[in-house]
């Protein structure tokens, strides 16, 4: 072969006699009459891929101030301020609960290197990539986007792309894969938190002793991350699984309280351990645990977003789903937000976009409230306003219960939340729901498919994962 290459090279080096010049001219002439492929940029815009790293959008209600993004940022360009709020206990004699309130979340895009680590590490799906890129400023200080501006970008976030054929989809969407792998890698039996099925999670929780609080929350993080798209709505992610499974409100209450207590215990231990460089060893475990406690509050982000008033936390402590009558009519929400925005001086486009978002949120909240109303307690996990967020999937039961849960409470849960529904039925149901909500056909189908996929995975993987979980201690 080498000879061949040499021969070709020798031929190429031979002198020509002007023929090459004419050939070159021919190429140019050919192109003169070709239709060219220039995109007239400001007028016509290229359809960028949904993965394009244009700008980072913040879904504020998902942020639990765990500081992971700020700590992992290689450029130190994320600034977070927060304070703690003490909420009154839900029940007489309960302990007061604490939650972190985000005061400031800013990204300095003049420093940002667009690596996407913050988006990757965020355990609660509060950060997303948007493909918008036209935010150049005349003043470098304007490039520091505060949380309001970052939240505005949420309207431009696209849903994640479908994966190429042959991609490993045993249920996990792409992002979950590393986390799941990471989880299985670790030695503790809790590692069986391959996260996707509540069954395995709870079984791992069974194994978790209080002494393991150091590691356990971490696994919990992995689990949450793995289950992200399934549970990306904040309340869905953090509502403990038993709730969905148990019809009796009283019992659910009890479980919650137990949880809360154990949460408080976990918090008592020093968890955040810094290494020399200042990186946090137990990554955000504390915040995670806190967040679970916080999840008890029935504040739905949607209603918060829509009414712009603090949620009536004390009013209905035992009702996770808002009542229909509390909710705003979608059209009202639209009109109100539009009005507010124009008063606030937003540009018409922004105002309209925000209003639309508000309307959609309100619609969804309505749908869910309706669905929840007859069942009194069991809430359908709400889809968030984010296009990228997943749709409800009650059959699967959102994950990430606190690992400190009592074994007895988890046992029935494991049964109850095992995949009961046939994937096809899930498909049909979700499709119906989506249509009812007024999603476009494509979106509805996609979501239904995703739901079917997850249901199928839940059915298929429960067994093996269980096995893995049991294998752990024997080793």
């Amino acid at each position, binding site marked *: 072969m080498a000879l061949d290459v040499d021969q070709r090279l020798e031929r*190429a080096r031979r002198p020509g006699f002007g023929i090459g010049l004419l050939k070159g001219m021919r190429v*140019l002439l050919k192109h003169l009459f070709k239709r060219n492929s220039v995109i007239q940029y400001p007028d016509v815009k*290229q359809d960028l891929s949904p*993965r*394009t790293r244009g700008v980072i959008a913040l879904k504020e209600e998902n942020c639990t101030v765990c500081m992971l993004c700020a700590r992992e940022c290689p450029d130190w360009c994320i600034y977070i301020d927060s304070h703690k709020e003490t909420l009154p206990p839900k029940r007489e004699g309960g302990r007061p609960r604490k939650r972190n309130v985000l005061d400031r979340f800013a990204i300095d895009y003049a420093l940002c290197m667009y*690596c996407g680590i913050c988006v990757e590490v965020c355990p609660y799906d509060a950060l997303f*990539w948007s493909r918008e890129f036209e935010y150049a400023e005349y003043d470098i200080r304007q490039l520091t986007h505060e949380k309001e501006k970052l939240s505005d970008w949420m309207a431009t976030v696209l849903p994640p792309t479908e994966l190429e054929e042959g*991609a490993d989809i045993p249920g996990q969407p792409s992002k979950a894969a590393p986390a799941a792998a990471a989880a299985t*890698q670790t030695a503790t039996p809790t590692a069986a938190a391959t996260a996707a099925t509540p069954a395995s999670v709870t079984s791992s929780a069974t194994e978790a002793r209080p002494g393991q609080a150091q590691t356990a929350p971490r696994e919990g993080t992995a689990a949450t991350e793995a289950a992200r798209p399934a549970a990306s709505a904040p309340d869905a992610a953090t509502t403990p699984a038993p709730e969905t499974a148990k019809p009796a409100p009283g019992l659910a209450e009890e479980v919650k309280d137990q949880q809360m207590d154990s949460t408080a215990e976990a918090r008592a231990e020093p968890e955040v351990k810094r290494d020399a460089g200042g990186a946090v060893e137990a990554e955000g475990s504390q915040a995670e645990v806190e967040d679970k406690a916080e999840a008890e509050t029935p504040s739905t982000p949607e209603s918060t977003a829509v009414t712009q008033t603090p949620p009536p936390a004390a009013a209905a402590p035992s009702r996770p789903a808002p009542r229909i009558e509390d909710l705003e009519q979608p059209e009202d929400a639209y009109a109100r937000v539009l009005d507010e925005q124009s008063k606030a001086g937003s540009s018409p486009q922004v105002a309209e976009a925000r209003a639309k978002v508000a309307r959609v949120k309100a619609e969804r909240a309505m749908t869910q409230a309706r669905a929840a109303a007859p069942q009194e307690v069991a809430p359908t996990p709400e889809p968030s306003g984010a296009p990228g967020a997943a749709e409800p999937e009650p059959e699967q039961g959102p994950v990430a219960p606190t690992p400190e849960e009592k074994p007895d409470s988890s046992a029935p849960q494991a049964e109850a939340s095992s995949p009961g529904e046939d994937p096809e039925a899930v498909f049909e149901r979700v499709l119906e729901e989506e249509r009812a909500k007024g999603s476009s056909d494509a979106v509805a189908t996609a979501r239904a498919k995703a739901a079917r996929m997850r249901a199928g995975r839940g059915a298929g993987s429960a067994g093996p994962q269980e096995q893995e979980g049991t294998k752990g201690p024997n080793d």
Partner: protein
Amino acid sequence: MGAIRGAGSAGPPETRGAGSAGPQRVMDPELQNLQDSSAFASEVSEGRLVTEEMLLNVGPQHPATHGVFRLLATIDGERIVRAEPVVGYMHRGYEKLVEQRDYRQITNLISRMDWLSGINNELPLALALEELMEIEVPPRAQYLRVALAEMNRILNHLMFFQSFSAELGAITPTFYAFREREDIQYAMESVTGGRMHFGYFRPGGLKEDVPKGFIAMALAAVRKVIQRLPDYEDLLTGNEIFKQRTINVGVLDKEVAYSYGVSGPIGRGSSIDMDVRRDEPYLVYDQFDFEVCNGTHGDCFDRFWVLLHEVVESAKIVEQALAGLPPGPIMGKVPRVVEAPKGEVYVRTENPLGELGFYLVSDGGRRPYRIKIRTPSFSNVSALPHALQNTLVADMIAILGSFFFVLGDVDR
């Protein structure tokens, strides 16, 4: 004593000393002596033209250096007597920076080292960590890595088609090359989210799987490049003027190339038959059928010719890798926090511009203890004075262009 003598007195506006106003005379001390001595007078009286050397400061801002690179050329008329490359205008201290960051952050930093081949930069880091941590990478990830790395190689080579031809004065191939690049970049953006800085490889696998439609898009883009290659041959390698400008210009001897560690297309142009992909196959390169092109003369033409044919070979590999893409996971079993165990390893890959090696010293932490980054451009550029000696100013541009270096890679 004609015009050339006057050349010295026409002061360079960009002299090294900031405060030097007025014409500045840069003169070889030997010549100065000669001029003072009576020998000089006799030279002139004998009718022999005494010419004076002139210091030509090419760069740091010069169109031919595509980056901030300075070449101190001592010229005699148009002939280059000596040339000394001066680098460091873009030194960012990567080796120090990586010691302060954990492995995940490094991946994204390293991507920016050689901005034309981001994904190829990430590869040796991932490989070094996998070697130390003994991670097995699933085949799907390996195939995708190969495909993306080769697409990036095509991107890089297309860039040098354009820069080389632009330096020789042919502006048209520039735009054709950018047109071709666009398709590939779009395909890669749909996978990684970035157009140049990909940040896609992770120790143990990939960040995420490729989106639907990527294979078709990538294949179409790569095939388009191959379809259009004859245009480049007509415009450049087949063009008589191009041949005039490149054949037997800037010859780099094989032995010199060895001693300077010149690798990649430039080394192969000097008939160093060396390609890491073939010699020590990493990833799954041993499963693909491709040819390593070697030049025989070590001149500009051979270097460019090798570059041109590597595009064909890369396209072949991309086709094979995407056609044989196995299903499965894209991430091996990796602990949640990447901590390389204690140890040292040197891992090298075939970057588009040559051998990129990472000597990783780990003391078991989340951060590397030390990484020596052996970049191809650094070694290649250090051999420049050899190729530049006794050439003309116009050749200097051709040689600079044919050394295919990226300043970010030289300075790190």
